[in-house]
């Protein structure tokens, strides 16, 4: 078994090679970094900062942090913590790291506030038992497994924000696969960052323009190529509506969770969920 397993690991590794690219535009004091194959998508970072060396070191820290989180949240990576939790939690109490535990506790809280529509198990979060005293996780159902697909990018962006704030980078735009955007400060020639939302079903058609400053944006929606990727955990139906929802919140984790939940929710549910989040700005676009 050892042999084939190692080969498989090598193959998986090749497919998940992260490529990082960066370039500093001197005249504009603009740093651009790109990281491919990260959490199933890509990340682009733009910093406006005159200190080139600072940009480069912040980017290296950002990349390292993203790779760490990618590994931690990747349920397919046989070396990740979540892989081993998913494998062992149905039969034993698995001791979890502080970080994994605290992420799951937050997820539980959002699960309740979203009336069950945000669910990292995609079916039955109640079957996940979080023992905070002993810091263990166990599943009471056999078929349960945890998938952070709907919140990992948001969580990672909050961590990236910390890196930027600590380094005193004031103006930055981070685009995580188009669906999660973090805006710090403003564009060098404007008082905010202005971005637009494109209709994925009609290229070039802009459905909205959004101004961002020191906030997080998350977008959820379907694309012609990917109609079946959002599931209602209560009905197990795919959400196939041709629509997009956007949410602006103070942190990226919350924004990403809410955008998924609000994409699934009907009108009534949307109102009820939003009643818990006064500051969040929600929009829905029917395409």
């Amino acid at each position: 078994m050892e042999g084939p397993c190692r080969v498989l690991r090598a193959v998986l590794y090749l497919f998940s090679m992260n490529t990082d690219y960066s370039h500093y535009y001197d005249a504009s004091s603009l740093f651009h970094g790109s990281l491919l194959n990260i959490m199933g998508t890509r990340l682009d970072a733009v910093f406006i900062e005159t200190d080139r060396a600072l940009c480069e070191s912040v980017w290296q820290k950002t990349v390292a942090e993203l790779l760490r989180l990618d590994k931690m949240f990747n349920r397919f990576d046989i070396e990740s913590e979540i892989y081993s939790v998913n494998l062992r939690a149905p039969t034993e109490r698995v001791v979890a790291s502080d970080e994994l535990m605290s992420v799951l506790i937050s997820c539980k809280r959002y699960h309740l506030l979203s009336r069950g529509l945000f669910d990292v198990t995609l079916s039955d979060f109640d079957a996940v038992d979080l023992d905070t005293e002993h810091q263990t996780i166990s599943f009471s159902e056999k078929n349960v497994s945890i998938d952070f697909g709907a919140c990992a990018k948001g969580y990672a962006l909050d961590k990236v924000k910390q890196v930027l704030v600590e380094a005193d980078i004031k103006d930055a735009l981070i685009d995580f696969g188009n669906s999660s955007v973090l805006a710090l400060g403003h564009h060098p020639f404007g008082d905010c960052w202005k971005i637009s939302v494109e209709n994925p079903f009609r290229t070039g058609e802009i459905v909205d323009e959004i101004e961002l400053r020191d906030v997080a944006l998350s977008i959820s929606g379907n694309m012609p190529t990917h109609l079946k990727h959002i599931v209602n955990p209560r009905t197990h139906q795919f959400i196939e509506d041709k629509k997009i929802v956007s949410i602006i919140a103070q942190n990226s984790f919350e924004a990403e969770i809410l955008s998924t939940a609000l994409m699934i929710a009907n009108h009534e549910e949307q109102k009820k969920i939003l009643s818990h989040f006064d500051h969040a700005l929600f929009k829905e676009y029917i395409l």
Partner: protein
Amino acid sequence: MSTDKNTKQVDLELRQFIKNLGYIAGGTALLTTVPWLQSFTTDKLSEIKNEKARVAIIGTGSRGQYHILNLLRIPHAEIVALCDNYPPNLKTASDLCPKAKTYNDYRKMLESKDIDGVIICTPLNWHAQMVLDSLAAGKHTFCEKSMALTMDECKAIYEAYLRTDRVLYFGMQRLFDEKYIKGLSMIHSGLIGDIVGIRCHWFRNNDWRRPVPSPELERKINWRLYWESSGGLTTELATHQLEVSNWAMKRIPESVVGMGDIVFWKDGREVYDSISLTYHYRNGVKTTYESLISNKFNGLGEQILGHKGTMELEKGQYFFEDVAPAPGILQLINNVEKRVFSTVPIAGPSWVPETASKQKPHYVIEGMVHTTSGGSMVGAENDGSDNLISAFCQSVITGEKAKDIVEECYSSTMLCLLGNQAMKEQRKVDFPDEYKIPYLKF
């Protein structure tokens, strides 16, 4: 010929060219990439608005006529004399600018006090003599590429250039071509990483011959085909691209190997119709040069290969090795570089790898790319030739020398001649010490 509309248009084009260059890297990086443009600002252009450079042309064949057409549209130029020793070509040129005096002996013409600048468009074997005579006659001088037929002639021109207080230009139009200037400045800013290799090629499918009215004119009209008057594919085509290669590398190769043959056009010509050369830079980078004139599939191009990406200068395109930058982010960066604040389309449902094609080109100049098939023997449109000749006329008025143009032409011509030597002698040829000039960095 020259209507008001045309005149305005060219003036606008040159202004636009200079203005467009202004926003690349805020002008500072620009000067390190293109030192020869230092004197060409929009302000300087307005200063000479009411003046005219009185220019004469020697060699009014196809390239000469091409320059005439451009000169007629340049407000600060006046063609005062024409010289050619082949009457039909002199007549055609004279029809284009009837006011210009005509000569069949260029030495006679150089005696005229009414000429400020001379533009030489004769076969390669005439370049050296004419450049030296023109400078000696006190004329500002422009000569078509390549510099000269032999290494000694090149050296003589270079030495005359060091001594003279006159302006001297050579027809290296890529130095004034917006897409090359921008492309090169992007390369120098590190966009494609370290340069690890360069591939240049020029392919055509035609015999390079011109019809000859009577047999004794063969060597005069088809001068390109004989070693006594031509360096063949190197001095006629490669010279432009080797210059670009050095421009990218900021240094010049120390040796060359190569092979040249007549593969297809076995019609009595002497110069090769098929060449492959490899130039070796001291840091190990190689420029491969290929040219063939019996197959045009590949057209022409210069690929600068970097460890992060590839720049195709002639096409004005570049590619990244691994990462295809998000189009919205690229747009944002372009806007910031142009100091524009506007919205960029980056938000939407999650980007998944399948929706992004890997090797998508990015463009050096958004929305505007003039590429050529490389098929023309006269010159392509919008390739910088008009800006170059206009810049020369400006220098004729101001007397201000343009930096580095002579040195660039010297380097690339030397490389052509060394390439020819390597092919003829079938051996590796090193850049000879006696022809090294201080400008060259190996």
